[in-house]
């Protein structure tokens, strides 16, 4: 899976990608083209680099910001390098871009020497700069300098003299200009031949600089948002103080607190239950986000984390756009879940996350589906999470319940606005298999029309008394 695809599916990931302060166009492209890390060794190397940058930022931010400033002057020169490789003659604008790129690259190379340790080894382009800066000015601007050819210098001088004396006809001046231009073209060709040998170094430099840009942006974000390096493990994935950065940011904007949670996922199925408004979906989405962040080489939003890498993350949140394919939401969910079941039967190394499985059908069959699907995950030892409202789950499944609202709130008045501060979002192990029946309570707290709440309560009372009679 490429990052490009992942952000189109995971909103929280897109949010973080947009917040990343990438300075160069190649940095952005590099991020989009990143493939998921599936090897612990490779990811640990990447994390090592990220750690180095974070240390460097903490020790002396100036060098890093100087590097970033150089990065922000980098331009996309892929096209010019391709032209160079395929033996084409570059124009002045392209040569200017290559010169300015090489100078910035050299600047970054020198700046890195000021760090405790060079993070990314860059190719040395000083030979290239020497050719494109014959006057050794250190300024990136470029033209075919007189220094390249005596003949060119002479021709230009002749033109200049002719112009300033004003005596010559336009035709004569045009002739002189064309002559000088022709020599210029020849010189340009020679320069291109000379710098062609640097094409592969330039390609390497583009990649390395892009990588460095991304590392710095990730490091800055990790510091700013309190992300931490997860430990890569084989067994249980677990988080302490896990949070969803986008939701947290949203709450902070409204002066509300985000309650971070702890969770552990074994290599088996885990059902998350809890009342409405209890944040089950957020837990699921945060787990998805963290797994992706980790496997795309980011640190994760948690105080500490142990993560087991997977080959694939399979997510069903039940809001797929299915109208166009002519499927009902139930049908498209089932197709999706069926794929998950296929994968789990293959014993693939996957993380499966399903939000409110079978919520769009009747509770009797819905529950049956939940138990059946969970059973398959259970038997195949698939690391998976399913959130649900249904009671009557098989007792051998591991179940986590969101604590939810305090039973006894006294005379506190709860409204849609402050419900967040009375809700305890932490997860507890729950063996009952019963799901809290708080829908009506929450609905009335939210200020939903009384007719609905009272009507529903009457229905429940009638049902209860009937059962009593029976």
């Amino acid at each position, binding site marked *: 899976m490429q990052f490009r695809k992942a952000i189109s599916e995971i909103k929280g990931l897109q949010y973080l990608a947009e917040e990343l302060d990438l300075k160069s*166009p190649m940095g952005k492209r590099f991020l989009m083209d990143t493939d998921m890390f599936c090897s612990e060794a490779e990811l640990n190397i990447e994390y090592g680099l990220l750690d180095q940058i974070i240390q460097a930022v903490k020790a002396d931010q100036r060098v890093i910001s100087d590097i970033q400033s150089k990065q922000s002057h980098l331009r996309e020169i892929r096209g010019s390098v391709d032209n160079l490789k395929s033996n084409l003659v570059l124009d002045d*604008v392209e040569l200017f871009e290559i010169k300015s790129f090489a100078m910035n690259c050299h600047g970054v190379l020198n700046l890195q020497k000021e760090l405790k340790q060079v993070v990314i080894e860059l190719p040395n382009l000083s030979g290239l700069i020497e050719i494109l800066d014959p006057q050794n000015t250190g300024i990136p*601007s470029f*033209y*075919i300098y007189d220094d390249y050819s005596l003949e060119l210098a002479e021709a*230009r001088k002749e*033109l*200049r003299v002719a*112009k300033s004396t004003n005596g010559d006809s336009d035709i004569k001046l045009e002739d002189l*200009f064309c002559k000088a231009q022709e020599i210029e073209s020849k010189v340009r060709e020679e320069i291109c031949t000379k710098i062609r040998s640097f094409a592969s170094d330039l390609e390497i430099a583009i990649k390395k600089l892009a990588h460095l840009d991304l590392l710095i942006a990730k490091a800055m974000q990790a510091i700013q948002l309190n992300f931490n390096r997860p430990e890569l493990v084989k067994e249980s994935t677990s988080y302490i103080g896990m949070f969803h950065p986008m939701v947290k940011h949203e709450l902070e904007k409204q002066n509300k607190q985000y309650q971070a949670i702890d969770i552990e996922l074994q290599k088996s199925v885990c059902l998350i239950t809890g009342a409405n408004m209890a944040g089950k979906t957020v837990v699921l989405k945060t787990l998805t986000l963290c797994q992706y962040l980790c496997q795309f080489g980011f640190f994760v939003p948690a105080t500490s984390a142990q993560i087991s890498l997977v080959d694939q993350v399979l997510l069903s949140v039940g809001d797929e756009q299915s109208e166009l394919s002519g499927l009902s939401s139930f049908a498209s969910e089932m197709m999706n879940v069926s794929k998950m079941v296929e994968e789990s039967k293959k014993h693939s190394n996957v993380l499966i996350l399903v939000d409110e499985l079978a919520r769009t059908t009747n509770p009797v069959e819905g529950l049956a589906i939940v138990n059946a699907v969970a059973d398959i995950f259970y038997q195949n030892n698939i690391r998976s999470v399913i959130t649900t409202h249904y009671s009557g789950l098989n007792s051998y499944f591991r179940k986590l319940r969101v604590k939810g609202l305090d039973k006894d709130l006294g005379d506190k008045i709860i409204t849609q606005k402050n419900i967040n501060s009375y809700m305890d979002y932490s997860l507890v192990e729950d063996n009952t298999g019963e799901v809290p029946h708080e829908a009506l309570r929450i609905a009335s707290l939210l200020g939903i029309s009384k007719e609905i709440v009272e009507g529903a309560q009457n229905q429940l009372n009638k049902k209860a008394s009937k059962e009593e009679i029976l």
Partner: protein
Amino acid sequence: MPFLKDIKKYKSLSIVGLEKNTGKTECLNYVLSRLRDSHKQIALTSIGIDGENRDQVTQTHKPEIELSEGMMFVTSEIHYAKRRLFSEVVDVSNQTTSLGRLVTAKAIHPGKVMLSGPANNTEIIRLIADLKTKGVDLTIVDGALSRKSLGSPAVTEAMILATGAALSANIPQLVFKTQYVYDLIQLPEIESDLKTKLRGIENGIWAIDEEGEIKDTGIASVMMIKNRKDQLFQYGTDFFVSGAITDQFLDFLKNQKQVSEIKLITRDFTRVFANPETYYAFVKRGGRIQVLDKTNLLAITINPVSPDGYKLNSEELQLALESKLQVPVYDVKKIVGADAVS
């Protein structure tokens, strides 16, 4: 020539022709020739694609812009490749125009170049600011008054207007048309608080209520006014019109009973596309127009020769304009001649 002293006070100047062949390029070349010895770093650019094409249509003589050594210029990649001078690439923009990216360069040798520049106001303002950081003292923008262009020369601090026989072969008519543009250029600027609020608005007609709050009237453009009349005055009589103020719109407003309270705000004078008759009738009945960006008109230059060969009396035209407008008027060709003699 006195307006050249004034030029030095400003960081940006546009030169705008009221019609094709009103001598804009001659005016520009004259200004450049006079600034040559001033030791100021000059940069030259244009709004969108310059008039090159339209002169191919009229097939009249169009002098190219002659740059002297050391002068900077900004043009698109395509025009840069066609330059008839030697120059040093100083920068290349990240944004692309229809003619490729914009190249900032410095002339190594004197010579001619075709200019094309950013096509909208934000980009022009950004470019002028960027050139300043590159050591440019004065940016000269070759401008055009066009309803098609999103970019307006009014974003520069100062302006020189070129008018002439190409606009009208009849002196009173020519004076009337020039005075209209002159009057529009003098439209007052709004206070800067409101300016920042309005600048980001891209389309539609917006009302400004008594508290200074900006409200969307729900009318997408002045073209829709016929069917949405009732919605217009819901928040009062002050409006910001993001697009063009058309003849039809002003004509509609001038006939409303609230006309004397109406205040229209537009981006700059180039967004008023009403006939002079309609505009003056609107103003006469008490309507007002204000602008976000006001420029300082330094001078008007005249070209008494029309493209079809008709020639007006230069002194007579100059006198007629000067008596009506509070701004110096020059015939550039005549002063070029006079300069050569002196």
